[in-house]
């Protein structure tokens, strides 16, 4: 129902101008595409070739600088670098940590965003406003500072430990653990999820919810059968962008996590920089990329589904 409303609101988009203008549109849209192609597309292709052992051409300098480079032994390359990474005893725990933090933090962030969004939509009022405003604060704070602030807060001489000391409780030091990474990740991911989810819920017409109430539907039923389906696309967007962002994060696990095991984002930076194993770091990047692509499929699927439902495709 709201889908049809959406169509009337954005009908200009659904039916862009006649085809004769299409060449102009194509060329106008080219600059950002070319920038991304040149500085993201090309490096990724080069990096992929590098990970397979193609060490000549543009990859020559990095191959000369780096250590433990596996060179190709056939026309397509070699999987030796991948084998080396998978056999590294650090890789397994790192990958598990990355996936666990991503899953748990994304789940909690989306549940919190949904809870606050639904409360704001149905009850509203001052309390809801305070709650939403509070959770948007991290938007103002650069990640480096957030991670550092969270570290000092939960540290061995941080606030929680100091406060509880006076009550005779020895609060555990959370920093340098996976739990601290999860806490920091939730902190930094919350605003985007809240913005997406709450604006999705806001666009559900009052009439729909009121009608369901009049018909005697329970709160949970309204949430399950009306609010979540109608805000489905924004919710999926919140999930995918949160998950992808967490998977590749560096600063939060770098400041808050243990040395071992840590998230792959930190390991990529360490292998590229201090350890000087650029090829292995690129291999790990592709492992995360594959995991992120699986999440991205969800995003594209949800968008296509919604476009189909509203007749835009």
């Amino acid at each position: 129902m709201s889908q049809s409303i959406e169509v009337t609101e954005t009908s200009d988009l659904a039916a862009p101008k006649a085809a004769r203008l299409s060449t102009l549109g194509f060329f106008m849209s080219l600059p950002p595409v070319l920038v991304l192609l040149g500085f993201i597309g090309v490096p990724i292709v080069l990096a992929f070739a590098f990970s397979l052992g193609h060490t000549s051409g543009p990859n020559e300098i990095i191959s000369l600088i780096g250590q433990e480079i596996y060179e190709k032994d056939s026309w397509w390359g070699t999987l030796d670098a991948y084998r080396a990474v998978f056999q590294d005893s650090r890789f397994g725990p790192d990958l598990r940590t990355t996936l666990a933090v991503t899953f748990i933090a994304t789940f909690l962030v989306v549940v919190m965003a949904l809870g606050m969004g639904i409360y704001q939509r149905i009850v509203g009022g001052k309390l809801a406003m305070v709650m939403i405003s509070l959770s948007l604060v991290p938007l103002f704070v650069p990640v480096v500072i957030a991670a550092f602030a969270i570290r000092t807060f939960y540290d061995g001489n941080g606030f929680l430990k100091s406060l509880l000391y006076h009550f005779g409780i020895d609060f555990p030091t959370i920093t340098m653990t996976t739990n601290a990474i999860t806490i920091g990740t939730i902190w930094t991911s919350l605003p985007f999820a809240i913005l997406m989810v709450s604006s999705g819920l806001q666009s559900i017409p009052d009439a729909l919810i009121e009608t369901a109430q009049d018909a005697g539907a329970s709160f949970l039923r309204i949430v399950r059968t009306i609010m979540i389906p109608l805000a489905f696309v924004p919710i999926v967007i919140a999930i995918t962008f949160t998950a992808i962002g967490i998977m590749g994060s560096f600063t939060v696990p770098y400041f808050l996590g243990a040395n071992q095991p840590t998230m792959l984002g930190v390991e990529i930076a360490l292998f590229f920089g201090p350890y000087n194993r650029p090829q292995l770091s690129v291999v790990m990047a592709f492992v995360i990329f594959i995991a992120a692509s699986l999440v991205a499929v969800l995003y594209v699927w949800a968008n296509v589904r919604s476009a189909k439902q509203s007749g835009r495709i």
Partner: protein
Amino acid sequence: MARESNKLNLQASSLITRSFILLFIIFMAIFILGPLFWLAARAFVTSWTFPNLLPDGLTLEWWRVITGDESLKKAIRNSLIISPIVVLAASVICLPAAYAFARYKFFGRKTFLIGMFAANAFPKIGLFAAIATLYYTLNLMGTVLGVIIIQLLGTIIFMTWIPAAAFAAVPQSLEDAARDAGASKFRVFRDITLRLAMPGILVGMVMSFLHAFDEAQGTYLVGVPTIYTMPTLMYALVLNYPAQIAAVFSILLTIPSIILIGIARKHILGGQLAEGFQIK
């Protein structure tokens, strides 16, 4: 949707729910604001002994250290010069494209939109490692241009998608009516399309500026040791200076965000940001 019409009377506002919500708000306040205050307070104290809840003494000495340190001042200057250039470049590159995505149907439109998203799905830190390889070849390592490009990459998605949604939301009928009334094409674009899309463009620019200003990982990889910006200097500060210095610097680094998001707050909350992230 009208914001005033939020209050639907569902049974959710019983006393138990209210006290539960209140508890949750207190939890959120400690969870979100606690670390920030705990850190910010350090900018004004001499030292702080565990487990005291109050500092040993108050001082403004750390602020004097910051204003006297050449490398810190240089980082501030670099940040304040580079980020606006990035936003400007992003606007020039992306705004025509945003208009095209909103108004024209052309070959590859959907592919481009999804491609932009895919570019975002590659792990940032891995991407920077890959870009560094290219930078060595192109001699961009340690140059201002290299830093600008690396910061620009992350702003493209904001500067294209959010303004595109804003352009798309301008009713075609309004433009047609103005054309019928004899307004020139340029005038219609300037007085109607651009004006109505301005909030979306503003949100795009604010998000881009913050992204560029806060970008640390890529800038660190390609800029250090020749070019330090405020966030990249933070890495060094945290490791090598007393926490009080890092606290002062944190406050300085957060000011632009607070000002900018303050300006655009209404539009960001109004859904301009959320609208931009849906492929249509």
